[in-house]
Every structure is written in structure tokens, then in C-alpha cells.
């Protein structure tokens, strides 16, 4: 089959665009040289370039073919050299369709084929007609299904699972910020304000100015973040067709993608500080090592924003875990965090003392006011941490600013890793990590700071459950 004819002028235009950018940036085009003769020759050259690149892209187009063979996709291309590439359907993990705003106007799309293992997209068709893109996606999926020998009797209905309403989109855009970094930024301003200038000069004005600056920086960051979220997740939809989750999203770049359910390594429920106050959560899904070029982070979002209960029931549709009741970790872990923060405060005090002594007078003792903050922080860190080993799933929770609850099926475990740092050993605490083939979400599948003896037992227990789950899946 052929690529879309529209891709000839489009690609030629893109080539010329790059060339022009190169010329302009290399500085050969300065205004002084813009006399009539120059313009004449320039347009002559430009016309030449346009026709050459049009011809070139036409040849490229002529020589580019793709075929759907019985068990693989075959692409032949190359002007001077004949390149042939075969991608077996069963190796294709994901077919994604991308169109930017210009491509949308022209009605063309780029189809990318992602395979596991490779670090880049295996192949991409630049560009095919919109409808063609859709049918390629369907075709690959159909061939893949034939490969895996699934019975065709099940209906092919496409069930819509989720649609982000515009009010939820707005809420998501505003709430999905890294609260931690923002509060850190603001606190830093606050501390420097009060310490560096305020108390030193015993006047309030600079403190106010700095607080104002800090606030506006935070606000700007927030608005920028919200806008980018809005553009990315505009009109988000999620479907389920047989064993694949499919999503579609974006305002300027409409991107589509699919996640094979069988490749899901785990899911995580994320609520940052703000979302938690309002009872919202985000659901993310992780598949086995997709290529690095994909925007992994955004690709994994299954439900951008919904009420916590909805997210949980949605998650339980995907992975059949039980309602969880996360147990807490030993209370000496809390003392450990307090100790850790206290050391931090101690270092700050030392720095403050040095500045006070050798540079200029600062009220460094006001730093002692941080001690209660540290106590609260330690408690919050402690209380938001825990795990539960269910029958088929391991559930762990970590983080205060962004609380992540990871749900990992035992049969996805690749390695079990138990670690104790020197500092942990002092408290007789240990960390157990369930390593899976996923990249981001499930790497958070770990029980941190549990009792050392308990950790050893838990490791054995998880391993037994892992073996059990393998047996079960073999039977199935």
C-alpha cells in the first residue's frame, strides 16, 4: 500500500522549512544584502529548492510501500538503496496515531509501530490518510489477535469506559501540579525573606516583597502547568475493545494509543495534596517496557481525574484486587524521620550560625521554629506509608505530597529485592521492593521501613504467592 499523496508536498514543505531555518540561523541572511538582485536570485534558488524537494519527496513516495503479510508487516523503501523491513505482528506492542494541527487540517496522520525491547519506535508511516491510519490500527490488531489464536466469537464491541468532562478537565489541569516543589519554592522564599533581610533589618517590608514574589512565581508556575495539562488532556476518552485499552486525547496534538491489558504490569492511584483535600485521584496504568521515545508518563494515564471511589472501582475492574486496608509501619520509623529532619535543621542552624558569626547578623535561632514542623512532617510521612499483601496483589502506599498507592499482581514480579541501608539497620528497619518489567509506576511498589524480621518473612511470603500465581496462570 501507498502513503497518502498529501504527504509529498507536506514532507517537501517540512524539508524546506528545516533548510530555511538553517540558512536563517547560520546568519547568512542579513538585511543589508536584501537588494533587488539578491531577492531575484534568492527566489530563483528557492524555486529550485522547492521543485527539487518536491521531486525528491515524490520519488521517496513512489519507492515507499507497505504490505500486510500473513504474520508480519513489511515495509520497503529507499531511493538509492532498497531497504526492506519486516515486523512480526506479535512483536508490535502498540500502534499509535499522531497528528499535529497542520496534519489535522490536511487530514493525514503519522502511524507509529512500537515494539518491546527496542529503544526507538520500530517504524513509522509518514503520512497516511486519517481513515487509513485507523484501519491500519484495526488491521494490526486483528492480525495480532489471529496470532494469539483467540476465538473470534466474542463481540467486537467497543465499550467506552471513561470520558473526561470539561469541568473535570479544568479541575485536573488545576490540581495536577507538583505540590511539593511549589510549597518548597514558596518556603524557600519565605525563609530567605525572614532570615536574610527581615530580621536582620527589623523591618517587614522586604519580607512582604519576597512573599509577594514567591507567591507570584508559584502562581505563574501553576498557570503554566495547568495550561499544558489542559492542552494535553483535552477531550480525553478511554475505551476498552476486547483486551486493549485505547485512549485519545489532546487539543493541538490529538494522540491516540492503546495498551494491551495482558501487558499491564501494575496500576497506581495517585493523589497529590490538593486532590486529596477534594477527594479526587488519578489512575495510571503501566505496561511492559515500552520504548523510551514514547512519553511514558502521559501514556499511562487511564483516568486523569475522578472521585476517589470511582477511581478505586475502575481500578478494581482492571485488576481484581480487594478493597484494601493499608497497615501502618512500625512507629520507630516515625522517630527515624524526625531524626532525619532534625539533622537537616541542625545543619541549617550550623550554617546560620556561621553566617551570623562571620558575615552578618541573622536571627538564625528562629530556625528552631522548624522543629514542630519537622515533627508534623515526620508524622505525615509515616502515616501515609504502608502496605498490604493480599492474596493476588501487593498493595503499597508511599508519599505525603503525592501519595501513590501501587497495586502489583504477584505474577508480574521479576525480582524481589530487600535492602537495608546503614541508617535503616540502626533502627532495625528494612525495605522490600517488588521489581516488575514496568518502568515507572510499579517501581514504587515497595514497602518501606518495615520491621527487619517482618521484611524477611514478607519476602518469603511474597515469593510463595508469586509461585502460586504462576501455577494459577498456567492452569488458566
Amino acid at each position, binding site marked *: 500500500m501507498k502513503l497518502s499523496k498529501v504527504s509529498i508536498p507536506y514532507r517537501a514543505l517540512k524539508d524546506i522549512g528545516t533548510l530555511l531555518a538553517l540558512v536563517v540561523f547560520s546568519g547568512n541572511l542579513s538585511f543589508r544584502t536584501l537588494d533587488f538582485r539578491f531577492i531575484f536570485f534568492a527566489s530563483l534558488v528557492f524555486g529550485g529548492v522547492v521543485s527539487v524537494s518536491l521531486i525528491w519527496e515524490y520519488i521517496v513516495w513512489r519507492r515507499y510501500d507497505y504490505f500486510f503479510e500473513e504474520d508480519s508487516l513489511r515495509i520497503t523503501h529507499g531511493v538509492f538503496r532498497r531497504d526492506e523491513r519486516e515486523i512480526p505482528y506479535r512483536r508490535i506492542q502498540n500502534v499509535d496515531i499522531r497528528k499535529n494541527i497542520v496534519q489535522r487540517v490536511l487530514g493525514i496522520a503519522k502511524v507509529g509501530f512500537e515494539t518491546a525491547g527496542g529503544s526507538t519506535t520500530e517504524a513509522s508511516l509518514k503520512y497516511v490518510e486519517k481513515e487509513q491510519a485507523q484501519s491500519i490500527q484495526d488491521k494490526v490488531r486483528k492480525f495480532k489477535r489471529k496470532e494469539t489464536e483467540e476465538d473470534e466469537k466474542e463481540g467486537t464491541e467497543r465499550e467506552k469506559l471513561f470520558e473526561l468532562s470539561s469541568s473535570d478537565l479544568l479541575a485536573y489541569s488545576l490540581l495536577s501540579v507538583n505540590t511539593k516543589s511549589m510549597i518548597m519554592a514558596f518556603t524557600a522564599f519565605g525563609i530567605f525573606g525572614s532570615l536574610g533581610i527581615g530580621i536582620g533589618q527589623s523591618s517587614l517590608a522586604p519580607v512582604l516583597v519576597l512573599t509577594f514574589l514567591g507567591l507570584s512565581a508559584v502562581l505563574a508556575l501553576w498557570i503554566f502547568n495547568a495550561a499544558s495539562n489542559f492542552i494535553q488532556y483535552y477531550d480525553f476518552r478511554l475505551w476498552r475493545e476486547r483486551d486493549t485499552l485505547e485512549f485519545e486525547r489532546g487539543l493541538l496534538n490529538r494522540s491516540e494509543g492503546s495498551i494491551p491489558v495482558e501487558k499491564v504490569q501494575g496500576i497506581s492511584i495517585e493523589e497529590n495534596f490538593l486532590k486529596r483535600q477534594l477527594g479526587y485521584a488519578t489512575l495510571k496504568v503501566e505496561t511492559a517496557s515500552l520504548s523510551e521515545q514514547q512519553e511514558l508518563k502521559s501514556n499511562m494515564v487511564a483516568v486523569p481525574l475522578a472521585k476517589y471511589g470511582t477511581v478505586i472501582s475502575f481500578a478494581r475492574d482492571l485488576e481484581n484486587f480487594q478493597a484494601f486496608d493499608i497497615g501502618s509501619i512500625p512507629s520507630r520509623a516515625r522517630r527515624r524521620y524526625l531524626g532525619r529532619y532534625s539533622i537537616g535543621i541542625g545543619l541549617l542552624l550550623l550554617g546560620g550560625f556561621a553566617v551570623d558569626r562571620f558575615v552578618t547578623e541573622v536571627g538564625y535561632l528562629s530556625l528552631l521554629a522548624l522543629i514542630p514542623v519537622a515533627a508534623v512532617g515526620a508524622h505525615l510521612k509515616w502515616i501515609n506509608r504502608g502496605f498490604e499483601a493480599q492474596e493476588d496483589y501487593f498493595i503499597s502506599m508511599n508519599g505525603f505530597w503525592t501519595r501513590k498507592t501501587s497495586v502489583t499482581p504477584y505474577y508480574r514480579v521479576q525480582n524481589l529485592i530487600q*535492602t537495608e541501608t546503614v541508617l535503616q539497620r540502626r533502627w532495625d528497619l528494612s525495605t522490600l521492593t517488588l521489581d516488575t518489567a514496568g518502568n515507572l509506576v510499579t517501581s514504587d511498589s515497595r514497602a518501606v521501613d518495615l520491621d527487619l524480621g517482618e521484611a524477611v518473612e514478607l519476602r518469603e511470603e511474597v515469593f510463595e504467592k508469586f509461585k502460586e500465581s*504462576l501455577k494459577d496462570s498456567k492452569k488458566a
Partner: protein
Amino acid sequence: MRGLERKVIFVWLLQVTFLVSLITAGLLFAVLLDLLPVSVLALSVVFEGLGAVYMLLRFRNWSFELRDDHLFLDHGVLKRTRSMVPYVRVQHIDTQRGPVYRLLGLSKVVVYTAGSKGADVTIPGLSRSDASDVQEKLRDLAIESEDMDAV
């Protein structure tokens, strides 16, 4: 549980010495330029000593075992790490031998899984015959338990 070949300490000490000699060269340069006093060279001795102690502990803490259904590793000085690698998950196994390793008749076995963290489980410093034994055994066990999708 079994440990590594004692000879591996030599390799590690060599690495430490190499690093320390680089630092020493830097310090020496500074001394020759009169930027630092000569006594600073004592630091090199301290570093070498610390490195040696670390490597001895590293050797002492290293142990592994080929259990029924998984490979068990226990190692680490500042951070003790115990990992279980199920044979079902082993994708492939490498034996690596650098020049120094070859000189001492040592091998390094690397076990690959699809995991993101334990992607390269390494057993450093085995005797050559042990290494091929381990590799063979791991391969057999991995094949034996291979009727599952590894991912």
C-alpha cells in the same frame, strides 16, 4: 550459601589503588605548585586503607545460593541487599571476563531479567569452572521453568 573466590579481592584492591593513584597524582601536582602542604599526601594512605577495608567487607558480605526455584543473593556493605531472582524470569545469562579477570582465572556471571531494577544481577568473582557451572545450571533451570511468558 557460598561466597566468591578470594582472588576477587585483588581485582577490587587494584581498582582502589588505581583510583587512589589518580587522586595522589592530583594532590602531588598541587604540592609541587605549593598549593598544599606535603602532609596532604597522607590522605592517599588513608584512602587506600579505607578502600581496602571496604573491599574486605564487601568480600565478606557477598554470598549467593542456587536454590530450588530461585537465585538468592546477599551482598552490600553500606546497603545490604538481598534479592531473589526466580529462574522463570531469567532471560539470558552472560559470563564476562576482563583482562585482569582472565589473568587471575576469574569470571563474572551476569543474569538478565526483564525487571527494571534488577535488570543486571551480577555475581562477580567466580572461578572459571564455577562460573560455567553456575551458568549452565541457571540455564537448565531457566529452561526447565520456561513455559511462561517472561513478561
